[in-house]
């Protein structure tokens, strides 16, 4: 065992090729993640043909590093111009942008970087110590368990986002409604397509997200004063990391909680960084002493969600390595690469390829460590964006919105979709309907419906099938508990405000 670890460390850390690939793909990953519309999956898919000429370890190292960096880098445009680079960042986009408008962009990005790095390291350690055992968890999850898991993720979005429960819920439901457009995955029948072939593919959430967040901000910004006036994101000089490290030592237990949530969610195939991010944000809000800050510039929410989404990344490799079942689209590519290198995933990979697996663990740690300096450089580079006058920045953001929404599937239709969602975003903002929840509704609405219909179809229509397995019942109880506590607390709040009519009420 020790021998294997030593050998793995030697193979990894003494190989200049591994270092080159890790550093190169860290820069590439940061770049991909920071560009709106380009997902980590696309970055990895572009990288795959290169892996043909690489040894297995550098090839996997490149993918690991790229994904870790891309997930962090998605936070950079989220904070600076309110355009989430990845859906995982949508959970705290409003918080991050609010902080950035108060001139705290650098500190916020510092927090994101630090918590991403530490969360990622936590995930790597979990993978290392418990990977083989935790793989069994996937075997407990049938469609009914997933149904509750997705429902829990959606409920969390209602808790975290927005100014009031009904408004977040409305955003969520509208998002889910959009998710039903197109060919229904489970029935294989077209819905709401109005005979348009473009609508068959459904509403792609990447252009929708760019429109809801990015374009609506451009539209709003363009209508406002372009120079001075409204507070605009300003660049504060000063240290990036020290405040983050202070926060970390102050909130160590919260970090531990969030990273654990992230790692557990990550292990389940089909539940990735975005669910991790929302769930840990919601838990964080319920445990917080200042829940009113959430959605309004809460560093705590950002820290917890960042730790969770990075911690979930390593988890997705567990079902991929043990069962050959991809945990997300990136690990689907990883499985392909493994096969290409004649490494068959399966439980015996831990024995047959022990050294490689240990090297992979080391690479996970290495990737997160390399991310720290390169992320710092990226944050500094991001500072330049803040110096561009708003009147020049807005048109450039518009161009990036266009290209980013076009990039996902190379279709002009997605650009039109982005424009439409920009207007929807504007209307929602006017009535404070949570657009973050809408994005999650669009992502999880489809899977939720699939699991629901699959469970019912399997049981011949009996809704009991949703709760007649132990894990499903447990998840259902947790879900109902969450709803009950939310309902009680919002009822109390409304009682409170009803009794205090006539007194000045603080409203956001």
């Amino acid at each position: 065992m020790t021998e294997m670890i030593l050998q793995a460390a030697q193979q990894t850390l003494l190989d200049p090729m591994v270092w080159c690939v890790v550093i190169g793909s860290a820069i590439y990953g940061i770049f991909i993640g920071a560009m709106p519309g380009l997902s980590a999956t696309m970055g990895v898919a572009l990288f795959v043909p290169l892996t043909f000429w690489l040894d297995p370890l550098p090839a996997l190292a490149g993918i690991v590093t790229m994904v870790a960096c891309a997930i962090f880098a998605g936070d950079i445009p989220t904070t600076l111009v309110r355009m989430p680079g990845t859906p995982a960042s949508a959970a705290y986009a409003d918080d991050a942008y609010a902080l950035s408008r108060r001139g705290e962009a650098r500190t916020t990005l510092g927090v994101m970087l630090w918590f991403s790095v530490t969360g990622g390291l936590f995930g790597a350690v979990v993978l290392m110590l418990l990977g083989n055992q935790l793989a069994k968890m996937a075997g407990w999850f049938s469609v009914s368990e997933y149904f509750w898991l997705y429902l829990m993720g959606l409920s969390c979005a209602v808790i975290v986002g927005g100014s009031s429960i009904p408004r977040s819920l409305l955003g969520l439901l509208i998002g889910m409604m959009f998710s039903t457009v197109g060919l229904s995955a489970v029935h294989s029948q077209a819905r709401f397509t109005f005979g348009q072939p473009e609508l068959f593919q459904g509403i792609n959430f990447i252009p929708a997200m760019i429109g809801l967040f990015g374009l609506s901000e451009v539209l709003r910004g363009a209508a406002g004063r372009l120079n001075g006036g409204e507070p605009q994101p300003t660049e504060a000089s000063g240290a990036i990391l020290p405040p983050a490290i202070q926060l970390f030592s102050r909130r160590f237990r919260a970090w531990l909680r969030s990273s654990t949530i992230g790692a557990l969610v990550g292990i389940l195939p089909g539940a990735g960084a975005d669910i991790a991010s929302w769930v840990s944000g919601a838990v964080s809000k319920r445990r917080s002493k200042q829940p009113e800050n959430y959605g309004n510039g809460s560093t705590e929410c950002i820290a917890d969600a960042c730790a969770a989404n990075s911690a979930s990344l390593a988890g997705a490799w567990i079902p991929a390595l043990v069962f050959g079942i991809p945990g997300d689209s990136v690990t689907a590519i990883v499985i392909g690469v493994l096969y290409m290198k004649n490494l068959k995933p399966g439980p015996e990979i831990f024995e047959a390829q022990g050294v490689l697996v240990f090297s992979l663990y080391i690479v996970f740690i290495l990737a997160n460590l390399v991310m720290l300096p390169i992320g710092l450089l990226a944050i500094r580079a991001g500072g330049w964006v803040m110096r561009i006058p708003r009147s020049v920045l807005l048109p450039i953001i518009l161009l990036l919105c266009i290209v980013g929404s076009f990039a996902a599937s190379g279709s002009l239709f997605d650009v039109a979709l982005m424009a439409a969602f920009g207007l929807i975003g504007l209307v929602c903002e006017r009535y404070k309907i949570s657009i973050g929840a809408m994005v999650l509704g669009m992502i999880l609405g489809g899977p939720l419906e699939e699991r629901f219909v699959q469970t019912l179809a399997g049981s011949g229509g009996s809704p009991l099938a949703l709760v007649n397995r132990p894990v499903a019942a447990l998840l259902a109880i947790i879900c109902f508990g969450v709803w009950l506590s939310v309902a009680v607390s919002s009822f109390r709040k409304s009682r409170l405000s009803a009794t205090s009519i006539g007194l000045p009420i603080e409203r956001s």
Partner: protein
Amino acid sequence: MDANSFHHFSPRQRYRGRSHVSLNFGCWISITCVIVLSLGCTRSTDFPSRPIAIICPWSAGGGTDRVARQMAVELEAELGVPVNVINATGGGGVTGHTRGAQARGDGYTLSMITVELSMLHWRGLTNLTHRDFAPLQLLNRDAAALFVRGDSQYQSLDDLRDAIADAPKRLKASGTAYGGIWHIAVAGWLDSQSLAADDATWISINGAGPSIQELLAGGVDFICCSLPEADAVVAGGQVRCLGVMADSRIRGFEKVPTFIEQGHRWSIAGWRGLAAPSDTPKERIDLLGGAIDKITRGETFQSFMASSGFDMSLENAGQFAETLERQDELFGNILTQPAFQSVSGEQFGPMMFPIMIAVGIAIVSCLVAREVLSDYHDHGMENRQDTAGEEPFFPGRSLGVLFALVFYWFVSEPLGFILSAILILGGLLVLFRVPRVTAMVVAITASVVTYQVFAILLRVPLPRGFLEW
């Protein structure tokens, strides 16, 4: 050089504001731009002289995508122009196949076509058939195989068939969405055993991975997918393969018996191939076909296919066309059966979920409307004062942004990305009162840099326009 000319014009411009000079100035700029942009832009009539796109109807990372990307890399080396893969996913393959068939037949857009092409039109999802494509080469076939859990009581195909025959609709199966290739494989097998196609309840789960997981979790009794997809769990002993629906044993999986060996006369396979739109000129088809043929015979591609577990099965354009014809007939026979005509699980039809959500939206909207109204009551007056006193409000500029988007929609295809981007950026910057010289410099730099980054570095197929640039 162009930067100098801006400086020359700029001071006058600033002082005179909007006048006739600005028109001249605009003309000048546009002419300079066009000249600068067309420099070094050679329009050649040779084929191929610009990037080729391969449309993949399935998402990045899947089997089809991997084959497409490997093919793209090697085609690039063979033809000397960039070859990009576009994932036009969704709609069960309708989206990608439609885009591939409707693309301009100039040989610059190829498609990875998959077995779904022979199935979709029988299910009434599209009018597209294989006749909308000119086939180039069949690349591989993946035979269907049946899997049960390692601890399952079913030891052979006969066991499984008898169990299904004893209690129709009790056993649950999956592997893909309803009406997908693996579903049809199972239905066809049951049919060949004189059972009804829906005697095993099909649970519609997208993709082999989630289906395998469902099998492990005990949610379904057996699944159907290709051999490499379940290889890891078979090797680990969690899952057992009962047989493969092929005429002979598959290379790399020699231990797996075929259905025919077990006395079940049934074989079916998914396939992937390359094709171009049907109106592509013959000489370009021949040129592309030749290049693809050379690649598929090369060692790199063959070792890629072998190590990925894809069962390589090559057919040239002519043979591929015949195969497509036969496949169409085969799937027509299965999919027009009564078992497939009835909609699966009508009680949970496609509109159930949207209706549930619509009801939810209606209820929650009422709650939100109440909140909005009460906010208005509490703060209405203050808000109105706020907006009056605080900020200048220029809705015209937002309209300008929207107009820029509409403009881009119309001109990006004919003009190409760079020119349209320069026009909308320049227009907006001027609208936002940025000094014109800065506006021009920013517009040109930002557009060209964006193009370089996205189109060249990241391989996004941005529109190229009439300048072929």
